[in-house]
Every structure is written in structure tokens, then in C-alpha cells.
């Protein structure tokens, strides 16, 4: 599944754990219920899938050992993951990667980035043009990002969006 960063497809060096198989070495993303198993591993970096019904505080202990958190959109209308990504950055000061997966529209890309998400998984036949456009189209927002330090426009709440 292609991974999108800064509007462009990049190579995904992570793999997802396979059900009822040992985790093995290398960079691996485990489901939430295999987190402790992952933490017990000694080789390779660890990522976890955070269901959107879980509070990010459940990752508080594990976070220093995590290089990646995947936030999820079962359907694009369900916006809980925006708050989760923001809370990971703002409250837990997570500096690793945050990836969004699931049903996501390019029209949401800007919002994801401004909540602290770095990369987005898109399906194999995705037309990349709307995603690249979504990144370049907007130059102004009318509120500070909850997590990014964007340049103010001179007065008020407005911000110039960071262009990659």
C-alpha cells in the first residue's frame, strides 16, 4: 500500500505484524493488543496501531519505545483520529512518526498535517494528483495549528501554512 509523505509516494520500510505469526526482526507495526509483545522485542523499531476508540494516554508508558503510531479512519467521516494525533504531539510530546491509515480523502490531508500526522497510507490505485494539489493549494489558515508552529500573518489568528 503506497505511503504518502509531503504529497509524494515514498517507500514504506515498515511491515505489519501478521496474525498468529511471531513478530521477528526489523521495523514492525503491531496491533494494539500485541503491544506488550512488541515491547518485549529487542531488535528493530516498533510501531503500533491505535484504534480510534482508545485514549492516547494508554500509550503513555510505551511511547518512549515507539517510533511510529498509526491512527485509523474506519470511515473518513469519523474524525477521532485528528484529536488523537494532536494529543500525541501536544500532551505526550511524541516526536516519532504519526501515520494515518484507513478511509481518508485528499480533502482531509491538510487537516491531518496540521494535527501532527506525517504520512498517509493510500490504496494502490490512488490518483496522487489531488493529494499533491491539496498540499499546494492552500496558503492560509484562520487558526493556529494545535501542534505546528506556523508563521502568523501579522494580526489575529490567521496563519500562513507551512509548505513542504
Amino acid at each position: 500500500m503506497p505511503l504518502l509523505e509531503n504529497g509524494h509516494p515514498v517507500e514504506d520500510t515498515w511491515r505489519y505484524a501478521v496474525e498468529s505469526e511471531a513478530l521477528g526482526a526489523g521495523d514492525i507495526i503491531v496491533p494494539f493488543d500485541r503491544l506488550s509483545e512488541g515491547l518485549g522485542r529487542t531488535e528493530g523499531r516498533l510501531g503500533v496501531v491505535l484504534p480510534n476508540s482508545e485514549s492516547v494516554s494508554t500509550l503513555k508508558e510505551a511511547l518512549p519505545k515507539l517510533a511510529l503510531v498509526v491512527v485509523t479512519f474506519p470511515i473518513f467521516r469519523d474524525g477521532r483520529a485528528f484529536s488523537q494525533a494532536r494529543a500525541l504531539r501536544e500532551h505526550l510530546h511524541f516526536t516519532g512518526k504519526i501515520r494515518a491509515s484507513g478511509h481518508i480523502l485528499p480533502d482531509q490531508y491538510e487537516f491531518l498535517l496540521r494535527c501532527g500526522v506525517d504520512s498517509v497510507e493510500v490504496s494502490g490505485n490512488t490518483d496522487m494528483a489531488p493529494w499533491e494539489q491539496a498540499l499546494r493549494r492552500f496558503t492560509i489558515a484562520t487558526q493556529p495549528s494545535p501542534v505546528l508552529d506556523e508563521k502568523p500573518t501579522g494580526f489575529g489568528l490567521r496563519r500562513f501554512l507551512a509548505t513542504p
Partner: protein
Amino acid sequence: MSTETMTRAEAAPAVLPVGRYGYDQIDRTFLRERIEQFRDQVNRRIAGDLTEEEFKPLRLMNGLYLQLHAYMLRVAVPYGTLGSKQVRALARIAREFDKGYGHFTTRQNIQFNWIKLEDTVAALEVLAEADMHAIQTSGNCIRNITSDEFAGAAKDELLDPRVHAEILRQWSTLHPEFTFLPRKFKFAISGSPHDRVVARFHDIGLIARPGPHGRPVFEVFVGGGLGRTPIVGVSLRDDLPEEDLLAYMEAILRVYNAHGRRDNIYKARIKILVQALGTDEFRRQVEEEFVAMDRARYRIEPGLVEAIKARFGAPAFAPAGEAVAVLAEDRRRDIAFDAWVRTNTHEHKAPGYISVVISLKPAGGIPGDATAEQLDLLADLADEFSFGELRVTHLQNVVLGHVRQDQLHTVWQRLSQAGLGTANVNFITDIVACPGLDYCALANARSIPIAQKLSSRFANLELQREIGDLRINISGCINACGHHHAAHLGILGVDKRGQEAFQITLGGSGEEDASIGQILGPAMAEDETVDAVSRLIDLYLVRRENGERFLDTYRRVGTAAFKDVVYAPA
């Protein structure tokens, strides 16, 4: 021209719109970028790259609904304030893209009911030329922020809430975290102790007042709402300082976004969450988030407020002079004018000025509708008599905020010539009605014909004056867009075995004494309902004491007597 005069001319400040935030190039760029995005979304939908399911929330973010017969475009009117140029743009949309009229809504917006999908981008461009848009007039996001129609004018106002409404507008517009909430989210803000914004029936209602150090403080109501489950909001904070306004709003929205129900659309509003958790637990969760936030990041410094305030034009009031005496004399000489002044004006803070409510409820008319010609006239009157500024009310009327009292008679004459001089504000024919089954895909019954019948039945102004203040609201379905729960006399359209029928509710109020109307009994056919209202009014006229309003008599006498006159066999 000398260099010096040229410099002075260039340095002269642009004329700012009275009563609302004046856009600059940055705001206009923002809008242009969003229109281009919408143009693309329409194209992607037409090309099949977006499914209708995917397109729906995107078009809704731009105020575009698919109704029974056509697309409907709902245009945002931030805090209900419009400039004359904007009103003319609305008239142009009515003429070029609709059937020559628009419909003012209970959220202080205006909607056009006959828009073609292929015209929507062009309509948004007309709006953008007048610094307007349709962003977030629908969808599961923070909707248009509503406010007091007498903001900046009312004698009883403690502070003009519109600067803070603008701050909330900017903050909530395409907020990255809160654009896909469990359900829609509505704010209202007032700066008067007299609640004219229905604060207690909003997801968040804010009442601003001057604080101890000269900066505003806010009472915060949360979890109010109408719809299927009418609930009066609870007071979460009474003393929220201005600097923490956005932080606290973020905290409320974060708790809601995380825990609001997403499994059932009818239980997804914040009111259900507040009820499920209980006020204390909800408040605790909000406070927990609030104290964990980096508050400096969200702090609204006085400088920021003042910078936004500086983008608002202020009316330059002339000294009162003879204005008060002239109005008194005009009223003495013209009885019809005097009656209109009595009902359709509101006391102004500036000596010699007065606010005017223009009734969009002529006898037998459709509540809230205005033709393109009427819109143009309203724009002209705003320019001539009220600093180019107009307000839309949540009761579907229009207000000229600042009229010199010695010009009031002229204003009234001009309005009367255009059929806009009806002296019925707050009377029984000042009916609020949703579009109902004539337009709406959700409705069970038509709201407009019964509104017109009631309006015709009680058209006699002498009778209306005799009845006094009486708020009738009509909703065409349980979603309650006509706010029938908050009416003294509410009417709810239902489907009764395939027939349109109407339930009557009594005793609701949307003001400081907020209460939810109680269902009187079984639903009736349209004409029976109109007759039943007549009998209710007759009973009230017999039973009232000492100048009581209908609502007061109902509250004192109780339901039984009112029920009897409607349902007991003669």
C-alpha cells in the same frame, strides 16, 4: 497633485464595514483557494472520482444540500450581520441562479432553494466578490456563529459580542481537528443579560459581560438543543476569562470529538453526551483537558482582540438634536406609524437612534422569504439610514440597527410601499417556520401552508395587538428546524397514517426562562389545527389576568383547560 497629498490619500484607511469584520487580501486569498478546491470537488464528482457518499460531506462543507426538488445553497451570514453590498450580491444570486427570492433561516443565514449543481461555483464566486461564502453552513462541523440581532445597538447590552463571534468564526473555520465531528455543532453568543440568541438551546451558548479588569468574561452553556431530544443547556462556567476563551472551547470540542456517539446519528449531538456523563463528570473531563493544554498557545491576548476589533467599522452617531422630538411628533400625527414603532423597534443605546425590525411576515406570506427586489430595497435603506449595515434575526426578520429617530417615518413609508411595513413583530403572525415538505427531503409535513393560514386567520392587526406577544414556531418534522419546542405555541408536522397532521405544543421559551413546550394531545389535520389555535387564543383572552402574555397565562392556568378547549367535545 503634490507628493504630500498623494501620500495622504494612499495612507487614508480603507472604509471598514460597520458591525462586521472587514476582509483584507489574506482573507480574500483564503476564500479564493477554497472556491478552487470546491470547483475541483465538483469536477471529481462529475468525473466519478468521488462517490456521492464521499462528495456529500464535501459539498455540505460548502453549504450545498440536495433537497426534494433541487440543490439548496445555504449562505453564511456571520453573526447575522450583512453589508449592503453583500445584500445586493444575495439579490443577484436570487435573480441569476434561483427563482427570484431567498429564504432567511433561524440560524441567521439565507438559503436559495433552486440552485443547479453546475451553477454553484459561479454562485460562490458572486459571494466571494462580496466577501461571503457558504463554508460550514452544513456538515458535522462548527456551523455559523449566531449572535444578537441588536448587537452594538441595544440599550440593555453590556458589550458588543460580534468581535468575539468573529474570533470564534476564524478559529472554527476549517479547524483541522473539528471538521469531522460526530454531528453538527452550533454556537450562539450574546453580550446582553436578556437572551435574544437562544443561548440555552445551543451546543455552546456564550453570554459575555465586562469582567473585573476591563476584559470580557463569559458564561458558558453547553449541551442545549432542540431536535428530537430537546434539552436546556447547562452552565459549565460562569466566569471564563477572555484570554482562555479559545482554550476552553477547544477543551469542550476535544471531549466531544473523542466521546460523542458515532453509532447513532440521533444520539450524536453533544447534548446526549452531557446527559450521559452528567454535568459534573462532563465538566471534570473538560477541565482535565483544559489544564493539560499548553494554554499560552491558545491565549487570546488583548492585543489580538483589539487587532480584530480594529477591522470592524463603527457607526459615527450624530448628536441627538431634535431627533427624539421629531419622532414623538411623527407618532402623534400618524396612528399607523405609531403602532408600527410600538412593535417593530428596539431601544438604542445612542440618544436619538433606534433599531428597526423589518417584518418578513406579511399577512398570509411565507415567513422569512424575501424577493430580489426587496433585498435590493433593504440594501438601499441600509445605505441611506443605517451605515450600510443590516442584520438577520433568528426569528427570520431583518433589522436596521442604527436609524436616526427623525428619519424613522421615512423608513417606514419606504418599507410600507414595498410590502415590508407589517407591524406584527412578536405577535401571533410573526411566525417562524422551516421550509417543510415544500422543499425539505426530511420533512413529514408542509410548514408553509399552515403558517400562511394562521397568518391569514389572525391578519387583523387590532386583534393581534389585543392578543399581544405570542411566539408561534412551526417545524415540518421532528428535527425541529422551526424551533417549535422553544415557542409559546409550537406546531410540529407529523405523518399520521400517510396524511400530514400537526401536533400542538404549549409553554416553550427560548429566552432566559428557557423551557420546552409540552405536547397538548393527538395530531390534527391542517384546518383543524388552525381552528384549535383559535380556540386556544379565545381561552387565553378569557383567562388572562393583569396583562399576562399567553405564555404566562398558560404557565399559571396549566395544561388541562387548554387541552379541554381543543379536544373536549363541544
